[in-house]
Protein backbone atom coordinates (compact mmCIF):
# COMPACT_ATOMS: atom_id res chain seq x y z
CA UNK A 1 0.00 0.00 0.00
CA UNK A 2 1.33 3.41 -0.96
CA UNK A 3 1.37 6.18 1.66
CA UNK A 4 2.53 9.80 1.71
CA UNK A 5 3.47 11.59 4.89
CA UNK A 6 5.86 14.14 6.32
CA UNK A 7 8.64 12.72 8.46
CA UNK A 8 10.74 15.18 10.43
CA UNK A 9 9.94 17.93 7.95
CA UNK A 10 10.67 15.83 4.86
CA UNK A 11 7.96 14.61 2.50
CA UNK A 12 8.01 10.88 1.91
CA UNK A 13 6.15 8.54 -0.36
CA UNK A 14 6.59 4.85 0.17
CA UNK A 15 5.11 1.40 -0.13
CA UNK A 16 4.26 -0.15 3.20
CA UNK A 17 2.81 -3.41 4.44
CA UNK A 18 -0.72 -2.87 5.69
CA UNK A 19 -0.11 -4.80 8.89
CA UNK A 20 3.26 -3.26 9.70
CA UNK A 21 3.49 -1.31 12.93
CA UNK A 22 4.69 2.28 12.65
CA UNK A 23 7.47 1.33 15.08
CA UNK A 24 8.77 -1.33 12.66
CA UNK A 25 8.42 0.96 9.66
CA UNK A 26 10.59 3.57 11.39
CA UNK A 27 13.21 1.17 12.70
CA UNK A 28 13.40 -1.51 10.01
CA UNK A 29 12.53 0.31 6.80
CA UNK A 30 13.72 3.84 7.52
CA UNK A 31 16.63 3.02 9.84
CA UNK A 32 15.41 5.45 12.49
CA UNK A 33 16.35 3.40 15.54
CA UNK A 34 16.06 6.23 18.05
CA UNK A 35 12.46 5.15 18.61
CA UNK A 36 12.69 2.15 20.96
CA UNK A 37 10.54 -0.89 21.51
CA UNK A 38 10.05 -1.59 25.20
CA UNK A 39 6.88 -3.49 26.00
CA UNK A 40 5.20 -3.45 22.60
CA UNK A 41 1.85 -3.01 24.38
CA UNK A 42 1.53 0.73 24.94
CA UNK A 43 2.54 0.51 28.59
CA UNK A 44 6.08 1.92 28.61
CA UNK A 45 6.14 4.80 26.12
CA UNK A 46 9.66 4.05 24.80
CA UNK A 47 8.24 4.08 21.26
CA UNK A 48 6.56 7.49 21.61
CA UNK A 49 6.47 9.65 18.46
CA UNK A 50 4.46 12.75 17.59
CA UNK A 51 1.73 12.49 14.95
CA UNK A 52 -0.13 15.67 14.01
CA UNK A 53 1.09 17.31 17.20
CA UNK A 54 0.09 14.52 19.57
CA UNK A 55 2.23 11.96 21.38
CA UNK A 56 1.30 8.40 20.42
CA UNK A 57 2.70 4.91 20.94
CA UNK A 58 4.15 3.85 17.59
CA UNK A 59 3.84 0.18 18.63
CA UNK A 60 0.04 0.47 18.64
CA UNK A 61 -0.27 2.15 15.28
CA UNK A 62 -0.21 0.68 11.78
CA UNK A 63 1.84 2.16 8.93
CA UNK A 64 -1.15 3.06 6.68
CA UNK A 65 -2.43 5.31 9.46
CA UNK A 66 0.47 7.68 8.76
CA UNK A 67 -0.88 8.58 5.32
CA UNK A 68 -1.29 12.35 5.13
CA UNK A 69 0.08 12.90 8.64
CA UNK A 70 2.90 15.01 10.00
CA UNK A 71 5.27 12.77 11.97
CA UNK A 72 8.13 13.74 14.27
CA UNK A 73 10.56 11.20 15.73
CA UNK A 74 13.45 11.76 18.11
CA UNK A 75 15.75 12.10 15.08
CA UNK A 76 13.79 15.19 14.01
CA UNK A 77 14.58 17.23 17.10
CA UNK A 78 18.22 18.18 16.78
CA UNK A 79 19.06 20.92 14.30
CA UNK A 80 22.49 21.45 12.67
CA UNK A 81 23.99 18.79 14.99
CA UNK A 82 22.81 20.83 17.99
CA UNK A 83 20.59 18.97 20.44
CA UNK A 84 17.06 20.22 21.05
CA UNK A 85 16.72 22.28 24.27
CA UNK A 86 14.77 19.36 25.77
CA UNK A 87 17.64 16.97 25.07
CA UNK A 88 20.09 19.47 26.57
CA UNK A 89 17.94 19.86 29.67
CA UNK A 90 17.85 16.07 30.16
CA UNK A 91 21.64 15.88 29.91
CA UNK A 92 22.17 18.86 32.23
CA UNK A 93 19.83 17.49 34.90
CA UNK A 94 21.33 13.97 34.77
CA UNK A 95 17.95 12.68 33.67
CA UNK A 96 19.58 9.99 31.52
CA UNK A 97 21.06 6.77 32.85
CA UNK A 98 20.81 3.75 30.54
CA UNK A 99 19.06 5.99 28.04
CA UNK A 100 16.57 3.46 26.66
CA UNK A 101 13.49 5.36 27.84
CA UNK A 102 14.95 8.78 27.05
CA UNK A 103 13.72 9.25 23.46
CA UNK A 104 10.18 8.45 24.61
CA UNK A 105 10.36 10.91 27.50
CA UNK A 106 11.84 13.59 25.25
CA UNK A 107 9.06 13.10 22.68
CA UNK A 108 6.32 13.21 25.33
CA UNK A 109 7.88 16.43 26.68
CA UNK A 110 8.12 17.85 23.15
CA UNK A 111 4.42 17.13 22.48
CA UNK A 112 3.50 18.77 25.78
CA UNK A 113 5.54 21.93 25.11
CA UNK A 114 4.27 22.24 21.54
CA UNK A 115 0.73 22.53 22.93
CA UNK A 116 1.51 24.23 26.22
CA UNK A 117 4.84 26.08 26.60
CA UNK A 118 4.26 26.79 30.33
CA UNK A 119 2.78 23.60 31.82
CA UNK A 120 2.13 23.25 35.53
CA UNK A 121 3.77 20.46 37.53
CA UNK A 122 0.46 18.58 37.39
CA UNK A 123 0.37 18.92 33.59
CA UNK A 124 3.96 17.67 33.32
CA UNK A 125 3.08 14.61 35.43
CA UNK A 126 0.03 13.93 33.27
CA UNK A 127 2.02 14.28 30.02
CA UNK A 128 4.77 11.91 31.20
CA UNK A 129 2.61 9.30 32.94
CA UNK A 130 2.71 7.03 29.91
CA UNK A 131 6.51 6.74 30.00
CA UNK A 132 8.37 4.31 32.25
CA UNK A 133 11.96 4.70 33.44
CA UNK A 134 13.58 1.90 35.41
CA UNK A 135 16.83 3.76 36.28
CA UNK A 136 16.36 7.34 37.37
CA UNK A 137 13.38 7.21 39.69
CA UNK A 138 11.81 10.04 37.66
CA UNK A 139 12.95 12.89 39.94
CA UNK A 140 15.69 14.08 37.61
CA UNK A 141 13.46 13.70 34.56
CA UNK A 142 10.85 15.97 36.13
CA UNK A 143 13.63 18.37 37.19
CA UNK A 144 14.88 18.49 33.61
CA UNK A 145 11.47 19.48 32.29
CA UNK A 146 10.87 22.00 35.07
CA UNK A 147 14.32 23.58 34.61
CA UNK A 148 13.60 23.96 30.93
CA UNK A 149 10.36 25.81 31.57
CA UNK A 150 11.87 28.16 34.15
CA UNK A 151 14.80 28.87 31.84
CA UNK A 152 12.56 29.57 28.86
CA UNK A 153 10.19 31.69 30.90
Amino acid at each position, binding site marked *: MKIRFTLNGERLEMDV*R*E*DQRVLDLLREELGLTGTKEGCGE*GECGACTIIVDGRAVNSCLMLAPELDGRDVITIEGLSKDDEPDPIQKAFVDAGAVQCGFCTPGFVM*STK*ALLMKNPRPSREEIY*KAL*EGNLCRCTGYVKILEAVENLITKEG
Partner: protein
Amino acid sequence: MIGTSFSFYTPSTERELLITLSKGALPVAGMTDVMVKIRTGKMKAKALSSVSRIESLKGVQMADDAVTIMAATTYTELLENKGLKWRLPILLDAVSEIGSTQIRNRGTLVGNIVNASPAGDGLLVAYLLDGNLEICSNEGCRSVDVRDFVKGPGQVALAPGEYIRSVTLKIPPKDSLYAFVKVGQRSAMAISVASVGVLLRLNAGTIEDFRIALGSVAPTVVRPLELERNLVSLKMEDGLFKTLAGELMNYISPIDDIRASAWYRREVVKRIVENLSVYLKGVEKQ
Protein backbone atom coordinates in the same frame (compact mmCIF):
# COMPACT_ATOMS: atom_id res chain seq x y z
CA MET B 1 6.71 -7.69 14.20
CA ILE B 2 3.18 -8.18 15.22
CA GLY B 3 3.25 -11.90 14.45
CA THR B 4 0.28 -12.48 12.18
CA SER B 5 -0.57 -10.96 8.85
CA PHE B 6 -3.85 -9.27 8.07
CA SER B 7 -5.36 -6.70 5.76
CA PHE B 8 -5.90 -3.18 7.03
CA TYR B 9 -8.30 -0.69 5.49
CA THR B 10 -8.56 3.03 6.18
CA PRO B 11 -11.87 4.07 4.58
CA SER B 12 -12.73 7.77 4.47
CA THR B 13 -16.53 7.40 4.34
CA GLU B 14 -19.10 5.20 6.08
CA ARG B 15 -20.09 3.80 2.67
CA GLU B 16 -16.51 2.64 2.08
CA LEU B 17 -16.40 1.28 5.62
CA LEU B 18 -19.45 -0.89 4.88
CA ILE B 19 -17.75 -2.29 1.79
CA THR B 20 -14.73 -3.34 3.83
CA LEU B 21 -16.99 -4.86 6.50
CA SER B 22 -18.79 -6.88 3.82
CA LYS B 23 -15.38 -8.36 2.96
CA GLY B 24 -15.12 -9.61 6.54
CA ALA B 25 -13.12 -6.77 8.11
CA LEU B 26 -13.67 -5.90 11.78
CA PRO B 27 -14.28 -2.22 12.53
CA VAL B 28 -11.61 -0.69 14.80
CA ALA B 29 -10.87 2.81 16.12
CA GLY B 30 -7.77 3.78 18.16
CA MET B 31 -6.64 0.12 18.31
CA THR B 32 -4.99 0.58 21.70
CA ASP B 33 -6.54 -2.69 22.88
CA VAL B 34 -6.85 -4.40 19.47
CA MET B 35 -3.11 -4.23 18.68
CA VAL B 36 -2.27 -5.83 22.02
CA LYS B 37 -4.91 -8.54 21.58
CA ILE B 38 -3.63 -9.42 18.10
CA ARG B 39 -0.07 -9.52 19.31
CA THR B 40 -0.87 -11.81 22.23
CA GLY B 41 -3.04 -14.05 20.05
CA LYS B 42 -6.24 -13.23 21.98
CA MET B 43 -7.81 -11.86 18.84
CA LYS B 44 -7.54 -13.24 15.35
CA ALA B 45 -8.61 -11.09 12.45
CA LYS B 46 -8.07 -11.51 8.72
CA ALA B 47 -8.88 -7.85 8.14
CA LEU B 48 -9.35 -4.69 10.18
CA SER B 49 -11.03 -1.49 9.02
CA SER B 50 -10.28 1.74 10.87
CA VAL B 51 -13.03 4.31 11.44
CA SER B 52 -10.55 7.00 12.46
CA ARG B 53 -10.40 8.78 9.07
CA ILE B 54 -14.15 9.00 8.60
CA GLU B 55 -15.18 12.65 9.07
CA SER B 56 -18.85 11.81 9.71
CA LEU B 57 -17.77 9.67 12.69
CA LYS B 58 -15.85 12.47 14.41
CA GLY B 59 -16.93 14.97 16.99
CA VAL B 60 -19.49 15.51 19.73
CA GLN B 61 -23.07 16.72 19.32
CA MET B 62 -24.86 18.45 22.16
CA ALA B 63 -28.62 18.37 22.71
CA ASP B 64 -30.58 19.73 25.67
CA ASP B 65 -30.76 16.43 27.51
CA ALA B 66 -28.04 14.30 25.90
CA VAL B 67 -24.60 14.28 24.33
CA THR B 68 -23.77 12.17 21.29
CA ILE B 69 -20.16 11.09 20.93
CA MET B 70 -19.19 9.82 17.49
CA ALA B 71 -17.21 6.59 17.23
CA ALA B 72 -13.90 8.07 16.04
CA THR B 73 -13.71 10.77 18.75
CA THR B 74 -10.62 10.27 20.94
CA TYR B 75 -10.50 10.61 24.71
CA THR B 76 -8.22 13.64 24.30
CA GLU B 77 -10.81 15.31 22.08
CA LEU B 78 -13.41 14.73 24.81
CA LEU B 79 -11.12 16.23 27.45
CA GLU B 80 -10.54 19.29 25.25
CA ASN B 81 -14.26 19.79 24.60
CA LYS B 82 -15.34 22.74 26.75
CA GLY B 83 -19.05 21.90 26.44
CA LEU B 84 -18.57 18.58 28.22
CA LYS B 85 -17.03 20.12 31.35
CA TRP B 86 -20.35 21.06 32.90
CA ARG B 87 -22.63 18.72 30.97
CA LEU B 88 -20.83 15.47 31.76
CA PRO B 89 -18.08 16.15 34.33
CA ILE B 90 -18.18 12.53 35.54
CA LEU B 91 -17.26 11.36 32.03
CA LEU B 92 -14.22 13.65 31.98
CA ASP B 93 -13.18 12.50 35.47
CA ALA B 94 -13.20 8.90 34.27
CA VAL B 95 -11.59 9.61 30.89
CA SER B 96 -8.73 11.62 32.40
CA GLU B 97 -7.71 8.50 34.33
CA ILE B 98 -7.79 6.12 31.38
CA GLY B 99 -4.41 4.85 30.18
CA SER B 100 -1.89 7.62 29.56
CA THR B 101 -1.62 10.68 27.34
CA GLN B 102 -0.45 8.48 24.45
CA ILE B 103 -3.40 6.11 24.92
CA ARG B 104 -5.93 8.94 25.31
CA ASN B 105 -4.64 10.51 22.10
CA ARG B 106 -5.76 7.39 20.21
CA GLY B 107 -8.36 5.55 22.26
CA THR B 108 -12.08 6.18 21.95
CA LEU B 109 -15.12 5.82 24.21
CA VAL B 110 -16.95 3.67 21.66
CA GLY B 111 -13.87 1.44 21.41
CA ASN B 112 -13.88 1.05 25.19
CA ILE B 113 -17.54 0.00 25.06
CA VAL B 114 -16.94 -2.58 22.30
CA ASN B 115 -13.93 -3.92 24.19
CA ALA B 116 -16.45 -4.72 26.96
CA SER B 117 -13.93 -5.21 29.73
CA PRO B 118 -15.62 -5.30 33.15
CA ALA B 119 -12.81 -2.93 34.17
CA GLY B 120 -13.54 -0.43 31.39
CA ASP B 121 -13.86 3.00 32.98
CA GLY B 122 -15.51 4.52 29.91
CA LEU B 123 -17.94 1.61 29.80
CA LEU B 124 -18.83 2.23 33.46
CA VAL B 125 -19.74 5.84 32.73
CA ALA B 126 -21.78 4.73 29.70
CA TYR B 127 -23.78 2.41 32.03
CA LEU B 128 -24.25 5.21 34.53
CA LEU B 129 -25.42 7.76 31.93
CA ASP B 130 -27.86 5.29 30.30
CA GLY B 131 -25.73 5.13 27.15
CA ASN B 132 -27.40 4.22 23.90
CA LEU B 133 -25.55 3.05 20.80
CA GLU B 134 -26.38 3.71 17.17
CA ILE B 135 -25.34 0.56 15.31
CA CYS B 136 -25.34 0.58 11.52
CA SER B 137 -24.98 -1.90 8.68
CA ASN B 138 -26.02 -2.23 5.03
CA GLU B 139 -29.55 -2.81 6.28
CA GLY B 140 -29.74 0.53 8.10
CA CYS B 141 -29.25 1.62 11.71
CA ARG B 142 -30.62 0.39 15.04
CA SER B 143 -30.43 1.73 18.53
CA VAL B 144 -29.35 -0.42 21.49
CA ASP B 145 -28.82 0.35 25.16
CA VAL B 146 -25.21 -0.17 26.22
CA ARG B 147 -26.49 -2.45 29.00
CA ASP B 148 -28.12 -4.75 26.45
CA PHE B 149 -25.18 -4.53 24.05
CA VAL B 150 -22.65 -5.94 26.52
CA LYS B 151 -23.18 -9.68 26.99
CA GLY B 152 -20.14 -10.59 29.06
CA PRO B 153 -16.43 -9.93 29.37
CA GLY B 154 -15.29 -9.05 25.84
CA GLN B 155 -18.65 -10.15 24.42
CA VAL B 156 -20.98 -7.74 22.66
CA ALA B 157 -24.00 -7.91 20.40
CA LEU B 158 -22.29 -6.62 17.26
CA ALA B 159 -23.04 -8.76 14.22
CA PRO B 160 -20.64 -9.18 11.27
CA GLY B 161 -21.12 -6.26 8.88
CA GLU B 162 -22.17 -3.86 11.66
CA TYR B 163 -20.32 -0.90 13.10
CA ILE B 164 -21.11 1.58 15.84
CA ARG B 165 -21.73 5.16 14.70
CA SER B 166 -22.05 6.82 18.08
CA VAL B 167 -22.94 6.57 21.73
CA THR B 168 -25.49 8.94 23.24
CA LEU B 169 -25.18 9.71 26.94
CA LYS B 170 -27.96 11.35 28.93
CA ILE B 171 -27.09 14.52 30.80
CA PRO B 172 -27.89 13.94 34.50
CA PRO B 173 -30.60 16.07 36.15
CA LYS B 174 -29.48 19.61 36.98
CA ASP B 175 -27.55 19.99 40.23
CA SER B 176 -26.75 16.28 40.49
CA LEU B 177 -23.77 15.39 42.64
CA TYR B 178 -21.32 12.91 41.14
CA ALA B 179 -18.37 10.74 42.01
CA PHE B 180 -16.00 8.54 40.04
CA VAL B 181 -13.63 6.57 42.23
CA LYS B 182 -11.10 4.19 40.74
CA VAL B 183 -8.77 1.99 42.73
CA GLY B 184 -5.78 0.64 40.82
CA GLN B 185 -2.24 -0.42 41.56
CA ARG B 186 -0.93 2.92 40.36
CA SER B 187 -2.62 5.89 38.80
CA ALA B 188 -1.37 5.84 35.20
CA MET B 189 -1.95 2.89 32.89
CA ALA B 190 -3.39 0.79 35.69
CA ILE B 191 -6.45 -1.32 35.01
CA SER B 192 -8.99 -0.81 37.77
CA VAL B 193 -9.02 -3.21 40.71
CA ALA B 194 -12.44 -1.78 41.41
CA SER B 195 -14.25 1.37 40.33
CA VAL B 196 -17.41 3.10 41.42
CA GLY B 197 -19.45 5.78 39.67
CA VAL B 198 -22.33 7.56 41.37
CA LEU B 199 -24.89 10.23 40.46
CA LEU B 200 -27.11 11.66 43.18
CA ARG B 201 -29.71 14.40 43.10
CA LEU B 202 -31.14 15.71 46.35
CA ASN B 203 -34.14 17.93 46.90
CA ALA B 204 -34.34 19.41 50.40
CA GLY B 205 -32.55 16.40 51.85
CA THR B 206 -34.61 13.82 49.97
CA ILE B 207 -33.14 11.59 47.28
CA GLU B 208 -34.71 12.39 43.91
CA ASP B 209 -32.38 10.44 41.65
CA PHE B 210 -29.71 7.90 42.52
CA ARG B 211 -27.52 5.85 40.22
CA ILE B 212 -24.51 3.68 40.88
CA ALA B 213 -22.29 1.62 38.58
CA LEU B 214 -19.53 -0.72 39.70
CA GLY B 215 -16.55 -1.89 37.65
CA SER B 216 -14.20 -4.92 37.95
CA VAL B 217 -16.45 -6.73 40.43
CA ALA B 218 -18.53 -8.93 38.08
CA PRO B 219 -18.37 -10.27 34.48
CA THR B 220 -19.65 -6.88 33.28
CA VAL B 221 -20.22 -3.47 34.81
CA VAL B 222 -22.96 -3.71 37.48
CA ARG B 223 -25.86 -1.26 37.62
CA PRO B 224 -28.27 -2.39 40.42
CA LEU B 225 -31.43 -0.69 39.12
CA GLU B 226 -33.76 -2.18 41.75
CA LEU B 227 -31.55 -0.98 44.58
CA GLU B 228 -31.34 2.48 42.97
CA ARG B 229 -35.14 2.73 42.77
CA ASN B 230 -35.52 1.76 46.41
CA LEU B 231 -33.42 4.75 47.43
CA VAL B 232 -35.59 7.33 45.67
CA SER B 233 -37.76 9.38 48.08
CA LEU B 234 -35.65 8.36 51.08
CA LYS B 235 -34.23 11.04 53.35
CA MET B 236 -30.47 11.49 52.98
CA GLU B 237 -29.46 10.42 56.50
CA ASP B 238 -26.31 9.32 58.27
CA GLY B 239 -25.86 5.62 57.85
CA LEU B 240 -27.66 5.47 54.50
CA PHE B 241 -24.46 4.89 52.52
CA LYS B 242 -23.40 2.26 55.05
CA THR B 243 -26.65 0.35 54.53
CA LEU B 244 -26.27 0.78 50.78
CA ALA B 245 -22.72 -0.59 50.89
CA GLY B 246 -23.96 -3.69 52.68
CA GLU B 247 -26.80 -4.27 50.22
CA LEU B 248 -24.51 -3.79 47.22
CA MET B 249 -22.56 -6.86 48.25
CA ASN B 250 -25.50 -8.97 47.00
CA TYR B 251 -25.11 -7.52 43.52
CA ILE B 252 -21.41 -8.11 42.92
CA SER B 253 -19.45 -11.28 42.23
CA PRO B 254 -15.77 -10.34 42.11
CA ILE B 255 -13.04 -12.87 41.32
CA ASP B 256 -9.44 -13.41 42.42
CA ASP B 257 -7.05 -12.40 39.66
CA ILE B 258 -3.57 -11.05 39.07
CA ARG B 259 -4.57 -7.56 40.21
CA ALA B 260 -6.50 -8.24 43.40
CA SER B 261 -8.39 -10.86 45.39
CA ALA B 262 -12.17 -11.13 45.44
CA TRP B 263 -12.11 -10.30 49.16
CA TYR B 264 -10.11 -7.12 48.55
CA ARG B 265 -12.46 -6.01 45.78
CA ARG B 266 -15.49 -6.42 48.06
CA GLU B 267 -13.77 -4.48 50.83
CA VAL B 268 -12.74 -1.66 48.49
CA VAL B 269 -16.26 -1.27 47.09
CA LYS B 270 -17.74 -1.37 50.59
CA ARG B 271 -15.38 1.31 51.91
CA ILE B 272 -15.84 3.60 48.92
CA VAL B 273 -19.62 3.43 49.14
CA GLU B 274 -19.67 3.84 52.94
CA ASN B 275 -17.62 7.00 52.48
CA LEU B 276 -19.37 8.31 49.38
CA SER B 277 -20.00 11.70 50.96
CA VAL B 278 -16.22 12.30 50.85
CA TYR B 279 -16.10 11.68 47.11
CA LEU B 280 -19.27 13.39 45.90
CA LYS B 281 -18.71 16.59 43.94
CA GLY B 282 -21.06 19.26 42.67
CA VAL B 283 -21.27 20.22 39.03
CA GLU B 284 -19.41 23.44 38.34
CA LYS B 285 -21.53 26.01 36.62
CA GLN B 286 -21.02 26.99 33.02
